[in-house]
């Protein structure tokens, strides 16, 4: 793989470390110490245009090592070289335009801090833009950028280990943290993208997206017309939507964690007209809708496979649009989703299967038992709660969740066959225990001490009120035995009378 050419093999290293630059004059310092919001920790301030000059001086295949410092310039890499930061190298775009533009193939950009792009959405101001194949963008930190890494027709590229942080703008005025346009066979690995708009793949086939983290964006990962993509072991938290697949074919989703993606649509995973996909061993927790399926699988070439996923505490575990047919769910854990399986509108789930052979799913609301201890419930799992049924029809009724009225309705639904809705779906072999969760929640330590402290506080408060009432202290008064006093009455009466 040519982008793995080691920089050590590069023959000539161009070192620029003149004494005049290492110890800048007072004038130069003053010139660059213009007011800026950031606390500067860079040891030296460099003159403008320096990196450009070094690139101009470099030859094809060379590695340009840029010494630590702050560079206020816009860099164009026009020849196949490696540009490597030595220490903390900050390239500041000054809030204007793009910052690094790569127009030549086989370029490596490694270890820079690139920040402060323009905010022009029409011009799509980007921290790093490549328009040539086989670029490697690695271990850079992108801060305060509109678009982060924007690859246009750059197949066979590598985007690895970058941290991409967007500008603190409204979601509508942000740019994409990562965008691939016609970048077949690209590897996107180990990046962290936050506070951007989307990480999006357009028309890119054979891309691998793994071990990335995306949080507080709009779409954690968005595929458009991108086929044969592998998405593995990523984590998407607090985005509007975790992973959204559109019009793509041949997608594997494995071992991803989709947690608390709760935007207006709020899908953990959304599939729209996606074909030949498998969704395996993902952890989908606390999203508005765990998995949203619209028109997928798109053809009947291959059933949509959902296996070994854990869907827990989502408002809706899986939401099927009426157009969703041909999905097979096996060995998934459905744990305390308020609505485990929902059908939008008045659709039916008939064309989807909730068990296969002897493999069903685990349903936390399963009420049956397992007398023969084979791990499979003795009764089929049928889902029909009246309130879910009402909610599917009238979503605004969710407002009454967790109220006794909801329970009253469900009780009526169970007790009165006349209003009992048809079962939404049937799992004939429900599992008694959840299947092993591939990637358990990165357990925040259970706040036992704090909980105990609050328990203690509450009990103390209650005790204090009781003590205030004196209810506890009255025992002594009560224990004194009453004395017979019939004679006393008369005596006292006489005393008063006298």
């Amino acid at each position: 793989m040519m982008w793995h050419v080691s920089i050590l093999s590069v023959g000539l290293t161009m070192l620029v470390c003149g004494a005049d630059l290492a110890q800048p004059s007072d004038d130069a310092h003053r010139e660059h110490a213009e007011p800026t919001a950031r606390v500067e920790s860079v040891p030296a301030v460099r003159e403008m245009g320096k990196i450009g000059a070094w690139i101009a001086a470099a030859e094809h295949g060379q590695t340009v090592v840029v010494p630590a410092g702050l560079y206020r310039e816009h860099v164009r890499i026009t020849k196949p070289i490696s540009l490597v930061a030595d220490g903390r190298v900050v390239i500041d775009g000054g809030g204007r335009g793009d910052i690094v533009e790569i127009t030549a193939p086989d370029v490596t950009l490694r270890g820079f801090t690139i920040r402060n792009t323009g905010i022009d959405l029409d011009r799509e101001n980007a921290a790093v833009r490549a328009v040539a194949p086989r670029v490697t963008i690695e271990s850079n930190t992108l801060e305060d950028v509109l678009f982060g890494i924007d690859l246009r027709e750059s197949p066979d590229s590598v985007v690895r280990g970058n941290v991409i942080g967007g500008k603190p703008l409204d979601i509508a005025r942000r740019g994409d943290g990562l965008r691939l346009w016609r970048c077949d066979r690209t590897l996107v690995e180990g990046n962290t993208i936050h506070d951007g708009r989307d990480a999006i793949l357009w028309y890119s086939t054979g891309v691998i997206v793994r071990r990335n983290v995306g949080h507080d964006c709009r779409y954690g990962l968005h595929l458009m017309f991108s086929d044969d993509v592998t998405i593995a072991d990523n984590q998407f938290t607090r985005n509007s939507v975790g992973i959204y697949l559109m019009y793509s074919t041949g997608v594997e989703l494995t071992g991803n964690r989709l947690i608390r993606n709760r935007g207006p649509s709020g899908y953990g995973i959304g599939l729209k007209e996606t074909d030949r996909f498998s969704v395996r061993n993902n952890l989908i927790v606390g999203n508005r809708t765990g998995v949203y399926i619209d028109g997928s699988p798109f053809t009947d070439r291959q059933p949509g496979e959902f296996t070994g996923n854990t869907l827990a505490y989502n408002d809706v575990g899986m939401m099927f649009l009426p157009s969703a047919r041909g999905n097979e769910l096996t060995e998934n854990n459905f744990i305390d989703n308020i609505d485990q399986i929902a059908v939008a509108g008045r659709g039916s789930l008939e064309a989807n299967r909730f068990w296969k052979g002897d493999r069903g799913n685990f349903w936390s609301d399963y009420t049956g038992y397992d007398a023969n201890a084979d791990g499979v419930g003795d009764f089929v799992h049928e889902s029909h709660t009246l309130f879910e049924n009402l909610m599917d029809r009238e979503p605004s009724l969710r407002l009454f969740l967790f109220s006794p009225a909801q329970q009253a309705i469900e009780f009526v639904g169970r007790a009165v066959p006349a209003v009992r809705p048809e079962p939404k779906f049937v799992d004939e072999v429900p599992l008694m225990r959840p299947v092993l969760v591939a990637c358990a929640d990165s357990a925040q330590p259970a706040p036992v001490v704090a909980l105990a402290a609050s328990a203690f506080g509450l009990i103390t408060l209650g005790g204090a009120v009781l003590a205030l009432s004196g209810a506890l202290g009255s025992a002594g008064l009560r224990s004194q035995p009453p004395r017979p006093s019939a004679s006393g009455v008369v005596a006292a009466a006489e005393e008063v009378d006298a």
Partner: protein
Amino acid sequence: MIRIEHVTKKFGRTVAVDDACLTLPPGDSVALWGANGAGKTTLIRCVLGLLRFRGRIHVGGLDVRRSGKAARLLIGYVPQELGFYDDLGVAEAVRFFGRLKGLRSTDAEASLAGVGLTGHESKRIRELSGGMKQRLALAIALLGDPAVLVLDEVTASLDAVGRAEFVSMLRGLSGSGRTMLFASHRVEEVATLAERVAVLDRGRIDRVVPCRDFVASLGHGAVLHLVLPAHVRERAMLSLKAGGFTPRMNGVGVLVPVSSEQKAGPFRVLAEASIRVDDFELVALDHGMNASEPRVSNRHAKEQRS
């Protein structure tokens, strides 16, 4: 000390108190006399500011409606029956009301000793007998040494012995300069405690007479108090009148003044009329306010059948 001016109280269409006027100078003791429903309790509740009414009532110069709290501070009140937190200890109750009366500290033991409840301090109220409860109520009423005592049929739920004891206790209190207003339908109580008697009839104060005159009007030697079921009282009145007696009705029966030689006369008359007497008491009356306590006689004949 108490000034009642043109007080009218209606419950719906029923007039309970009708244009009542009554003034008690300090140290005065007035009994409200009348049958049940004559408006005694209602008037007392107006004095306590418990009811809304037309007219004006001042206690110690304070309007009971506008400054009821201050006015009630001058009043010690004993109800017909002490209804209170049953679970409360006796001494606790005294201290509680002491606080409500603005006393900094209450010597509960001393108060209770004053009414002969020494030794019952740690009992609960519900463990007390009726008479003891009334004495507790009296102890509470006397907290803070109020200038006015208001008593509402305080002996009505006591038996004869309890009644006698309680009245004697109250007598010990009169003459201490306290103003006393009390409702009663027992002659001996009125005779013992009142200086004047306000006779109420269907809400109106019929007349206010000195106690001596009132007692005299009832008869000479003694008053026979006959306890009769309500439905036969009217008939008994007619029979007795026909038999030459001058009966009066009160809350539980009929009072018949009798001379010493014809004490059994009313029984004969009633027996002839087939009227059953549930219980009776014979109260001998001394004329004048220096009377010793009324002699209660013959409380053994529980039931006299016709």
